[in-house]
């Protein structure tokens, strides 16, 4: 589906039938795969680094600035390799890919959103290698961190698109308003609409990634009633889009997807919602460390009660883990130390489409959500009980009606009987 062929542009992935399935097994011929990956990495390294020294010193230099030791970096490559569901033989190759990634031409577009993803990646106090690498990718265009402004910035973008046709990585953050021909969002000196910029840039990108729920599915800008007709990226381009949803998206998922793209030049396997399977195939509820308490019927019933202190299940407090697919429980947030349930609050389902409409109320069980029937403001139970009461009243009314009517008829027939009682007597005598 997403594995469209970009062989003309990048490296040596000229074989469209090249099977890549990290979830089960890489390929029937592992040696061939390794050779392909190595060849591709060689070609890319030759392209992006001037000499051997440049290649070898690039990443250490970057990591040194942030005080990340070589050992920490190696630990991180091991972590990312296993997160990608790759065998450990890929560890050095992941490290090489991370190195190449810092030099790959890169465009980051900000559309209608809060820029939470940018903040999530750039503003960490103790960044992990994932955030550092994102920080140091050779960003050709990214409004929030680039030095050029105005016409210069615009030129930078159009030039990148021209120069690296089919090679650059495009990351889009934020929903794209389509109402009024996209005029709800205009960017830059020329006042181009976000819709136009996205379409132009997506046309020639090597790989397109929608990061954050807004870019992937419209997110909060597209929440009901959606006055700007905001949509996700995949709705405005006919190219295949890799969605990395969540609010904000986990840097590990973005870097992992990018690394996989560097390794094989293809999008990873995607699920039905366009998300990489390696990151989004697990349901939070199934991988949650509080799942045992769910099964045992041990629930937090009120914020700060004893159950909360004992880390009981947050199901009654509106945790949407049962409806959410993400890898928060394994590749955690906040420099890989925590995620909502560990912090004591339920999941709000931010990696699912339209979570702002469908997962609310966030702090009540899903059964307490209002049902979407026009003109009715009630939960399924309230409405159901209402209907049941109405039906009960109807049954009671019918029963009473029947009784009264029957009595009347009975009286009537009695009177009639009394009138011609003689006849009845005659019958009896016979």
């Amino acid at each position, binding site marked *: 589906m997403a594995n469209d062929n970009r062989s003309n542009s990048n490296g040596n992935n000229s074989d469209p039938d090249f099977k890549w399935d990290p979830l089960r097994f890489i390929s029937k011929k592992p040696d061939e795969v390794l050779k392909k990956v190595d060849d591709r990495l060689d070609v890319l390294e030759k392209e992006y680094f001037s000499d051997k020294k440049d290649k070898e010193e690039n990443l250490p230099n970057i990591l040194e600035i942030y005080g990340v030791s070589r050992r920490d970096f190696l630990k991180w490559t091991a972590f990312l390799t296993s997160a990608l569901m790759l065998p450990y033989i890929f560890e050095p190759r992941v490290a090489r890919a991370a190195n190449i990634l810092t030099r790959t031409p890169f465009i980051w577009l900000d559309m209608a959103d809060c820029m939470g993803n940018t903040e999530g990646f750039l503003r960490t106090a103790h960044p992990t290698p994932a955030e550092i690498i994102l920080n140091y990718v050779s960003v050709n265009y990214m409004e929030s961190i680039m030095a050029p402004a105005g016409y210069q910035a615009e030129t930078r973008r159009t030039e990148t698109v021209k120069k690296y046709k089919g090679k650059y990585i495009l990351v889009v953050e934020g929903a794209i308003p389509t109402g009024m021909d996209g005029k709800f969002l205009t960017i830059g000196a020329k006042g181009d609409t976000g819709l136009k910029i996205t379409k132009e840039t997506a046309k020639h990108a090597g790989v397109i990634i929608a990061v954050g729920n807004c870019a992937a599915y419209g997110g909060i800008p597209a929440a009901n009633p959606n006055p700007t007709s905001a949509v996700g990226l995949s709705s405005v381009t006919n190219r295949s889009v890799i969605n990395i949803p969540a609010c904000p998206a986990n840097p590990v998922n973005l870097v992992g997807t990018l690394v996989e793209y560097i390794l094989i030049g293809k999008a990873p396997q995607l699920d039905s919602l366009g998300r990489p399977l390696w990151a989004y195939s697990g349901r939070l509820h199934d991988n949650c460390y509080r799942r045992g308490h769910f*099964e*045992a019927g*041990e629930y937090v019933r009120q914020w700060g009660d004893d159950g909360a202190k004992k880390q009981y299940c947050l199901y009654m407090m509106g945790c949407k883990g049962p*409806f959410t697919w993400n890898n928060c429980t394994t590749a955690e947030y906040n420099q890989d130390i925590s995620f909502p349930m560990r912090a004591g609050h339920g999941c709000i389902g931010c990696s699912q489409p339209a979570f702002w409409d469908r997962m609310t109320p966030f702090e009540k069980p899903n059964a307490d*959500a209002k049902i*979407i029937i026009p003109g009715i403001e009630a939960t399924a139970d309230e409405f*159901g009980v209402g209907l*049941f009461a109405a039906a009960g009243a109807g049954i009671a009314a019918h029963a009473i009606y029947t009784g009264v009517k029957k009595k009347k008829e009975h009286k009537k027939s009695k009177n009639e009987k009394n009138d011609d009682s003689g006849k009845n007597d005659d019958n009896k005598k016979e």
Partner: protein
Amino acid sequence: MGLIMQNKNSKYGEIQLVHRMTVIKRIIHWSFFAAIINNIITGFYIAYPFLIFGKTPTQADSLSTGVLNSGETYQAFIMTWMREFHFIGAVIIDVIFFVWLYLAFFSWKEPLYKSFIPFGDKLEEAWRMLKHYFTLKDRPKTGRYQDPLNAIIFTLFHLLILLQMLTGFQMYVASFTGTSAVGAWWPWLLHFSTDWTLVVFGGLTGVTLVHLFIMWLIIIFIAYHVYIEVWRSIMWKEGDILIPFGGYKYMRNKSESESDI
């Protein structure tokens, strides 16, 4: 005794036994009933866990529940059991639904489709029955076969069950990771037949709410069904309520009102 029968005969006409439900159908009826009641109770628990096990002292509602619910996590597993019984009940309902579907067309005794065809006539008869419920007059003579109004309502009820099955299977297959032990065809079949519910009802949360709401419609059906069968038994004096127990009802060749007037 003989005298009473004689009197009744003269008043209501002769009593005839009518065989209406075979043993199979009665077994289906009552296992359906048990499974649905089971799934309503366990389903309520899954939506709102009303028994909180492993309570801490401040969470216990009373001393007795506090004692009852003390113990280790593994000793409770109440949600596990509720879900397990919900799934068992669901399997029974699924099987019964398909058996019902088969019998509705291929029953030797009384296939349901015969209560629909010829369509126009039977609709009119259903309309007359509806009028009879409110006027208590002109009862259509349907003693020998399923009356069309009931047939329509039962069909709608089974469509509700079908929707309940589809939404239920969508929630069930959502927890699958990869293939199942019986092979990839099983999750594929479930996805193939139920994934449309995600689009129509707005994601898994919407599917859950629809599942919950249909339960109320089913409860309403049960209330209606019991009431109307009792009502018929009282009003028609033909023992309609006995059908699911013994399989037989009575039929009189004269109705009470006819004999009276």
